[in-house]
């Protein structure tokens, strides 16, 4: 039993905190999320030098050979700072999909470019229905002599406008296959969506987009299995990122209620405020343990789908509650855009949808129990 980060993980986190404290303040976020790309390319390169994009990539492919738990430890820090960059989509979605499903050739070709910060990846999965369900994938792949052509529409594609490559789920008859698609390929139309949080999202329309044979990712017709593996990791990594966010909100909230004086005393001495803060703490604690257990299980190659679904439910609930209660104790100051709280409040809302909302994950847990999974 050991609930602590390794010394290496602590160093990684410390370095990330220092870098983000210096480079990613609210002014930076406000500026960057208004840009078309939604991230700073110079900073992206620096992040690569710090080893972030390559954290989970084997050394032979230019990475540092860390594991999934290391990546989650880093994401907890980027979540604190609400780092606006396609780090999540490139590593947790892109690199993971290629690590799990890619051929040696694909791995040699793409992973070094991820590690070096040369390629931005994302996943084009969701469609009109907006759910993480196999049946919801309607984008069609047709076989041609050189490979495939893809036609259909993807929605909510994170950094779909600035990514270099898309991991795209497509239907061939009754089953799903994955493809590594050039994001700027002919036939793809990008329409930005206006979303609540800083992550840029797009609608991508595919009209007879040609994809060569060697861009099929994983086994043909077994793509949904790979998607589920990626989603399980993505849900847990998102929880880690959310944990960072809610912990940061708690930290600055505590700081505020100690300083803010009303009725002649710090508002943190009022029982109502104290209990709100205690409720935030408990929500975070509840989400934290199960998130790290899930991350640890994944990094050890153990089954973790139940833990992932549990963690995401609790993280959703905790982050939403944290920001709602933080608003309540901040009063007026927390309600204006000059204050960072509203960014976390928006992030909490969008994160709650990412890789399965609360109902989706509850239904997964219930299905496991129905299938006989032990609750203990």
């Amino acid at each position, binding site marked *: 039993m050991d609930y602590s980060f390794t010394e290496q993980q602590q160093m990684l986190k410390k370095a990330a905190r220092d870098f983000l404290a210096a480079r990613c303040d609210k002014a930076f976020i406000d500026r960057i999320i208004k840009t078309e790309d939604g991230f700073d390319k110079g900073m992206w390169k620096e992040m690569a030098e710090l080893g972030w994009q390559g954290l989970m990539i084997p050394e032979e492919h230019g990475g540092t050979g860390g594991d999934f738990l290391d990546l989650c430890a880093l994401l907890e820090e980027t979540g604190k700072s609400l780092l606006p960059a396609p780090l999540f989509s490139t590593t947790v979605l892109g690199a993971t999909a290629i690590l799990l499903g890619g051929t040696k050739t694909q791995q040699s070709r793409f992973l070094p470019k991820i590690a070096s910060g040369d390629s931005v990846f994302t996943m084009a999965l969701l469609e009109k229905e907006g759910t993480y369900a196999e049946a919801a994938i309607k984008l069609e792949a047709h076989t041609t002599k050189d490979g495939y052509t893809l036609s259909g529409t993807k929605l909510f594609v994170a950094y779909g406008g600035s990514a270099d490559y898309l991991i795209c789920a497509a239907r061939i008859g009754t089953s799903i296959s994955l493809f590594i698609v050039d994001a700027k390929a002919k036939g793809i139309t990008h329409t930005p969506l206006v979303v609540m949080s800083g992550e840029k999202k797009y*609608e991508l329309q595919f009209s007879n987009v040609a994809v060569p044979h060697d861009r099929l990712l994983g086994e043909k017709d077994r793509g949904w299995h790979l998607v589920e593996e990626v989603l399980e990791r993505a849900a847990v990594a998102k929880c880690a990122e959310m944990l960072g966010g809610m912990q940061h909100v708690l930290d600055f909230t505590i700081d505020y209620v100690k300083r803010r004086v009303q009725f002649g005393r710090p508002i943190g001495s009022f029982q109502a405020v104290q209990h709100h803060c205690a409720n935030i703490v408990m929500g975070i604690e509840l989400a934290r343990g199960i998130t790290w257990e899930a991350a640890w299980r994944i990094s050890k190659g153990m089954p973790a789908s139940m833990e992932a679904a549990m963690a995401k439910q609790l993280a959703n609930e905790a982050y939403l509650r944290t920001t709602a209660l933080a608003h*309540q104790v901040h*009063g*007026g100051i927390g*309600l204006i855009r000059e204050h960072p709280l509203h960014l976390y409040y928006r992030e909490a809302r969008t994160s709650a*949808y990412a890789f399965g909302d609360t109902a989706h994950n509850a239904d997964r847990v219930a299905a496991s129990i129905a299938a006989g999974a032990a609750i203990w």
Partner: protein
Amino acid sequence: MDFTFTKEERRFREEARGFFTAEVGGAPPLDPENEAFVPKMRAILRRLGERGWLTMTWPKEYGGTDASPMYRFILLEEMALSGLTSSGGFNTGGRIVGPTLIQYGTKEQKDFFLPKIAKYEIDFALGYTEPEAGSDLASLKMLAVEDGDEFVITGQKMYNTTCHWAEYHWLAVRTDPKAPKHKGISLFMVDMKSPGITLTPMYAVSGARTNAVFYDNVRVPKSRLVGDKNKGFYYASTALAYERIFNVGMHARMLHNIITYAQTTKRQGKLLWDEPALQREIARHAAKLRALRLLCYKIAWQMSKKIMPSYEASSLKVMTSEFEKELVHTGMEMLGHYGELEAGSKHVPGEGAFAQGYHSAALATITGGASEIQRNVIATRGLGLPRGD
């Protein structure tokens, strides 16, 4: 007991509904977070003023018709049902300034201001909150110093929401720094064009504009002092009593939007409505909506019987604002990924009303008296529990 409106009240409701249907019906709901909203809303209020509907409950001698508060309630409920927000600080003149002047104003003040308020030629911005005086309003610091026929005012106000368009500032300032803090505050009506006033815009999470307001030696004639000097805190507190009419028309619209979306949107081949957990949530909301509507009617009825509600208003403030959050939560969870889309985005559901609701709900339980303060009021004023803090 009797839970029906009178024939006259029902006729007035029909008339009001007809008016609002003509004014806003058919058009998409006005977006209160949008700058263009202000002139549109003001135009509608002017038309209400033309009909005498802003001042129905005022005494006849001041241009009113001595109507029962029930009529004002019906008007506001129909307004909210039509999609027009009843919040946002509009008609502070009619809601707060007018009734206060009628009770405490000089003849000159009444003659000058009341007709303009009645016709909605002018409006007032509430000038209470300061950076260090939020829930603890009595600790405000902005200072007014007597100088001949004038007061000279210096200091800062915060979150004064309508200052960038209202003609007058309904300003609470300290006039006796040595008195106990509740007893050294006075109210003034300040022309917003007075030299020395500057505004810094700020935007709420909902997108609505608010302002930091700076007074630098602003000279205000003594004739603009409201009532007696140093009694301003008392006037401001009692003025809130005029405001104790709540309605849940907006909540009805929100619930209606949720039901409509659920009954018309399919996911995995099934209508969202066919999710039993969602149905139960909606049923609970529907029950709460009806129950809250009755409590709103009850306060209006009490006021029409000259029974001044006290803690009941606090309890309705808490319940309606927390209910708003519950509705928003149901809506947001129901929408799934579509819930993250904002007004103006391709595919945004409900023309952005859901997202706007999410942002506005954050304000609901804070502005106009935070839920924590309101619960204190219920406990101390309503239940007679000893003050602790």
